[in-house]
């Protein structure tokens, strides 16, 4: 299986050469990977107090802000199409170092992952280590701010949460708020798994949710996938035109649809041996399953290529500033050449 090394050097050389040429070319002609921003001032002043005693604030022009008002600045990106040399020299926009570095990092990390195609290498290992660590931290942050704070703390201690993180929520307990002690207790029980001896307590919350899953999913699947699909399958086998005449092709299609559905279902019978008539029907069923898989494959390829196109557009467009702005529809006339070139 291992015959990679023969062409390893050649492939690396080709990849590096293409990349280097593009990078040098890009840097000599445009502002490769630069992000320019324009500052946006925000200022707020206190306008009064509402019936609950909370201060009310209104947005004001930053130039009018005085002591006691709250002010901050954000930055918005200047689109490439608007970024002219005159604007860059006017001083109203500035080069954002953090975003420029970020863009370069993003491009380099993209290439690191891409390098896995050539073979496992330190660059990929680095990117892999980083993406695992970063994303694990990221999902924990999301879980805390999106679920833990509003849905657990916000229910159990609404006053506290209202006063610091979510000023928009009601500061008092809702009806049945104490029910949320249950998930809190379940979390504590789950963490018993960290104990060397009390690990079995953690089975309780797991068992609870496995039971819930079994009951909850079963109904959903029966209702939407079983009953509704049987209902959708009930269609007349014979079709007529609008004027009452017999319609041949719709009838053939209706027959095919029904036969194919039943045949494919026969394939899934477990307690009948696939011999004789049943065996033949099951075989036809597999054929239709294979057509289904083929269609699914074709559709999926389309999606995957769109994803790659998006990443390459990021590299060539946002980073290297290579992509021309006009769309060329004239290639439709040269389709034969494109396909011929492909097959070469």
């Amino acid at each position, binding site marked *: 299986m291992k015959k990679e090394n023969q062409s390893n050097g050649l492939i690396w050389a080709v990849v590096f050469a293409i990349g280097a040429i593009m990078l040098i070319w890009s840097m000599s002609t445009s502002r490769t990977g630069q992000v320019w921003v324009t500052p946006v001032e925000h200022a707020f002043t206190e306008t009064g107090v509402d019936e609950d005693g909370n201060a009310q604030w209104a947005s004001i022009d930053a130039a009018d802000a005085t002591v006691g008002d709250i002010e901050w600045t954000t930055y918005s990106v200047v689109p490439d199409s608007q970024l002219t040399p005159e604007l860059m020299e006017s001083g109203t926009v500035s080069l954002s170092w953090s975003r420029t570095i970020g863009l370069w990092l993003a491009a380099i990390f993209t290439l690191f992952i891409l390098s896995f195609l050539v073979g496992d290498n330190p660059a990929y290992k680095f990117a892999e280590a980083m993406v695992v660590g970063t994303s694990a931290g990221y999902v924990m942050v999301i879980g805390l701010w999106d679920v833990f704070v509003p849905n657990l703390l916000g229910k159990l201690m609404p006053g506290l949460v209202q006063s610091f993180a979510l000023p928009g929520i009601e500061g008092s307990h809702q009806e049945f708020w104490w029910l949320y002690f249950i998930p809190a207790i379940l979390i504590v029980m789950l963490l018993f798994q960290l104990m060397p001896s009390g690990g079995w307590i953690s089975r309780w919350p797991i068992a609870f949710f496995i039971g819930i899953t079994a009951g909850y999913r079963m109904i959903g699947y029966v209702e939407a996938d079983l009953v509704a699909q049987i209902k959708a399958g009930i269609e007349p086998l014979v079709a007529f035109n609008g004027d009452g005449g017999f319609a041949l092709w719709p009838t053939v299609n209706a027959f095919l649809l029904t036969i194919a559905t039943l045949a494919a279902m026969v394939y899934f019978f477990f307690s009948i041996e696939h011999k004789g008539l049943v065996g033949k029907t099951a075989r036809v069923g597999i054929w239709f399953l294979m057509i289904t898989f083929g269609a699914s494959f074709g559709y999926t390829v389309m999606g995957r290529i769109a*994803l790659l196109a998006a990443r390459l557009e990021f590299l060539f467009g946002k980073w290297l500033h290579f992509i021309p702005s006009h769309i060329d529809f004239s290639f439709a006339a040269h389709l034969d050449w494109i396909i011929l070139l492909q097959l070469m």
Partner: protein
Amino acid sequence: MYQFLKNLDRRWIFLSMLLAVAIPILMRIAFPEVVSKQAKMVFDAVESIPDGSNVLLSFDFDPASEGELLPMAQAFTRHCSAKGHKQYYMALWPLGSPMVDKSLDTIRAEYPDLEYGIDYMKFDYKAGGEAVIRMITTDLRGMFPLDSRGVSLDDIPMTKNIKNIQDMDLIINVSAGDPGTKQWVQFASTPFGITTVSGCTGVQAPQMYPYIPKQLAGVLGAIKAAAEYEAAIDEVYPEIAANPKAQEAKRRMGPQLVAHSLMVGLIIIGNCIYYVGRKRGDV
């Protein structure tokens, strides 16, 4: 030649795929689109409801699928904005919220007359997937007491009288997986009969076909259908047709065509090798 192809290093295939996608992008090749039946069904579902209807747009995808689904999501946004529908945005994926923001940016830039809170609004991301869907079919406020800016729903004109999503005239779901179209069909469209259309990734599209037309009013599968949908919009709304930003999906079809023909070429070559190999008896 046969020996070379038989022992072909798979990295040459990788390289040819890279070039097949990269070259059309760099040259911005595009091809004309013919509107298919499915794209027409989806277009009609949005077009046929009266102007100003309530439309729920749930963007259940993340940056990983942005290349495939964002052009479609943007096309839905433009179509709804041009029709003056009331747009309620939500996201069931943790990283989906920024995708909705891109649509809101589009509205602000291209439809400055539309106002947040009156013509469009956004719910924040909520964890829970299908549980969120089930909940909001009966009780919207139970799940979303506030909008994404932290304002109570009772203080927003367009949500003041909305009890739950059964008040929606149409659900548009752009989805890359789970939770996504299947869950919307299972928990909103099937039990409550809310008209639903889906824009989904190519991989999901074939699974959605059995739901048409009763449980789903139409499906847009991947970038090709998005391009057709763009073409359908162009026919009715010339101002959108004139907007180069509204042609994203069509532009993406250039690399598609070249890459697809490469795929077919690879399948053919693979089978030639297999056929020759079997003749020579070394398979």
